[in-house]
């Protein structure tokens, strides 16, 4: 299987690139990590304040009972799907170029899911009673479906990150310097599960990674569908729509692939991985992004057309407020800056550079967050009787918590790559010519 067991220097270079973040991440690491941790800590403080004061501090009221936290919940869990897709689909289609980015993609899936899942708690009026969901769940409630789907998916993303990591953890174990603390040694010995790279071990690993790669796709689809259904199981215009499940799935994929682009670009630069991650990787990811953006635009068009053409008494005001009313700047801003511009930047040869593709991805991520606000707010504030719309306030508590959650993602990734190699060393060795043999592989 070992492609081109090349010179020791090539192998050393790969190992150096992949393990450097664990051993000596660079001078910038701790200042940045502490800065991000500070932001997360402030956000946590704001949340404590919210728990004490009640949800009004986040700008909610009876005529605007859902808003920013619900949008965040969908947005953050959404980006998690991109990581799962990049890794799982590219694995199943045997796209070899995936190898250097799978580890980062899988880590993004896990970290953003944890952060997104936190909003399921943050948005509750009585978070301390969440145990009731476990002891007395009502099967008829979409919230219970959410709980089951998200927790299953969380387990699956953790396994999906862990399985392909085992050979690399074994390498880490074997690389530990003699002066490494005993606890660290014991940890890596434990998590490496006695991996030595025998053919039997490799066969088992390949089979289980294949199985989880298949399994994670329907799981991720179910998570984003169920999130959508929590909205569409109500009779409210704008939410009660059969398109919502696939609509949310595609939106999740689009924003998720975009986040992978940003994360890969950031770590590539920070850890100088240019030798392993080239412009071609970004171009390939951007193409996937562009296709997903186009599909999402199609869904948006389909939604607006069917509602805006028939113009029922309930739906007409929602469409009007979106296309030409108070939300029109946000909506058209999203269509242009969140869809059209990213597509153009992704496909035009003039903008074929990492910088432009990262810009496209950033527009996509921010645009999709805005779109989630556009899904949540107009319907939540629309009158069901009479014609008085609710108004929502953007408060410092909601902003600080949202910014804190955003900061938690890079922080989580930076910390995670202190414990595991940022590149899938073993996979790269297997799939890509010009890399080094795996630990315990044939070359040993």
């Amino acid at each position, binding site marked *: 299987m070992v492609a081109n067991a090349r010179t020791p220097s090539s192998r050393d270079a790969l190992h150096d690139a992949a393990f450097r973040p664990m051993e000596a991440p660079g001078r910038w690491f701790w200042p940045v990590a502490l800065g991000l941790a500070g932001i997360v800590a402030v956000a946590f403080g704001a949340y404590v304040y919210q728990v004490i*004061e009640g949800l009004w501090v986040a700008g*909610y*009221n*009876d005529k605007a009972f*859902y808003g920013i936290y619900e949008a965040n919940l969908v947005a953050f869990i959404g980006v998690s799907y991109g990581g799962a897709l990049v890794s799982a689909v590219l694995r199943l289609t045997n796209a070899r170029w995936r190898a250097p980015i799978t580890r980062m993609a899988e880590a993004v899936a896990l970290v953003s899911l944890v952060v997104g899942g936190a909003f399921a708690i943050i948005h509750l*009026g009585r978070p301390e009673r969440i145990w009731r969901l476990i002891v007395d769940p009502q099967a008829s409630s979409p*919230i219970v479906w959410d709980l089951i789907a998200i927790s299953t998916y969380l387990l699956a993303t953790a396994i999906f990150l862990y399985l392909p990591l085992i050979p690399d953890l074994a390498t880490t174990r074997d690389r530990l310097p003699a002066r490494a603390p005993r606890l660290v040694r014991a940890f890596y010995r434990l998590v490496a599960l006695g991996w030595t790279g025998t053919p039997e071990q490799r066969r088992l690993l390949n089979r289980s990674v294949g199985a989880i790669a298949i399994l994670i796709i329907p799981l991720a689809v179910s998570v984003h569908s169920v999130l959508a259904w929590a909205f569409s199981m*109500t009779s409210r215009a704008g939410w009660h729509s059969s398109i919502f499940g696939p609509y949310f799935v595609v939106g999740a994929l689009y924003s998720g692939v975009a986040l992978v682009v940003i994360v890969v670009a950031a770590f590539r630069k920070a850890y100088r991985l240019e030798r392993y991650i080239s412009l071609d990787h970004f171009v390939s990811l951007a193409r996937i992004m562009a296709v997903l953006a186009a599909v999402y635009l199609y869904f948006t068009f389909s939604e607006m057309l069917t509602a805006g053409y028939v113009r029922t008494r309930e739906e007409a005001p929602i469409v009007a407020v979106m296309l030409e009313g108070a939300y029109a700047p946000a909506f058209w801003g999203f269509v242009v800056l969140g869809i059209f511009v990213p597509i153009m930047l992704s496909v035009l040869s003039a903008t074929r550079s990492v910088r432009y593709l990262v810009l496209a991805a950033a527009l996509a991520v921010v645009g999709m967050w805005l779109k989630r606000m556009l899904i949540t707010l107009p319907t939540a504030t629309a009158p*069901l009787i009479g014609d008085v719309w609710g108004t929502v306030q953007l408060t410092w508590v909601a902003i600080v918590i949202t910014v804190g959650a955003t900061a938690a993602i890079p922080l989580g990734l930076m910390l995670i790559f202190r414990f595991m190699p940022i590149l899938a060393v073993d996979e790269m060795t297997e799939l890509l010519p010009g890399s080094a043999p795996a630990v315990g592989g044939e070359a040993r």
Partner: protein
Amino acid sequence: MADTPVPSPTKAPSVEEGSARLHLSRRQALMALAGAGSALSAGPLLGALVSGRTGRADRGLLANGAEAEGARRWAMVIDLRRCDGCKKCTEACQTKHYLPPEQEWIKVYTLRDRTGVEFNVPRLCMHCEDAPCVRVCPVAATFVNRDGLVLVDQEKCIGCRLCMAACPYEARYFNWTEPTIRPPLPTIPTPEFPAPQQRGTVGKCVLCVHNIGHGELPYCVVACNMDAIYIGDLDADVATNGTETVRLSTFLSQNNAIRLKEELNTKPRVWYIPGHGEDLGW
């Protein structure tokens, strides 16, 4: 629970066939509603109301009327021909239930019909037979009691607000802050009388279940100077606004009573009598 004698529809007080008006005193009517011919039997019924059904949160999608023998099928009728929009009902409800001003468990909407004429619609919880809020509640905090009333156990509510999203009548309110208004004496809040409200949970009209079970009228019915609000029982087939008593089924059919958003199939227990061609299809 099932040992309290209740008059069946056939045993309802004498009525002239075809007439919606019954000639009963207010007290008699209330006693009929309470399921008793005399004041003596109201006691056990009250006991049953308070202890029996509240402890037992029926968590099915629907209250099963057949299973709960001796249960009521409470209903309300609002005569829009009489409502002048004075909001006395809202005021009384808020005072007696210790609610903040933004929680209008009975809320009077002033709307315009197609000719531009204003009319008033008091909206309370519809106590739907097929209540969307009950279905979406993840922890059975919202439930249907055996009389078909939709209640909220604020001790269980986790504050996810999906019921607010699901309710087609905007009848549910959230306690975004610690309630500032409290009863003068310390009380133990129950789903039937949730006072004081609990921060971070949902509250809504309880149809004054704390009153109607033992022959007292809901606060909004008492407060209405126009006698526009009727409380009744579909099984006993009577309803009263405190001044006059009507045979419920006849009253509804003769006046072309309608229910809000009938197309959603929620089967509300609140009827409206438009009378002046008000446009109720918001």
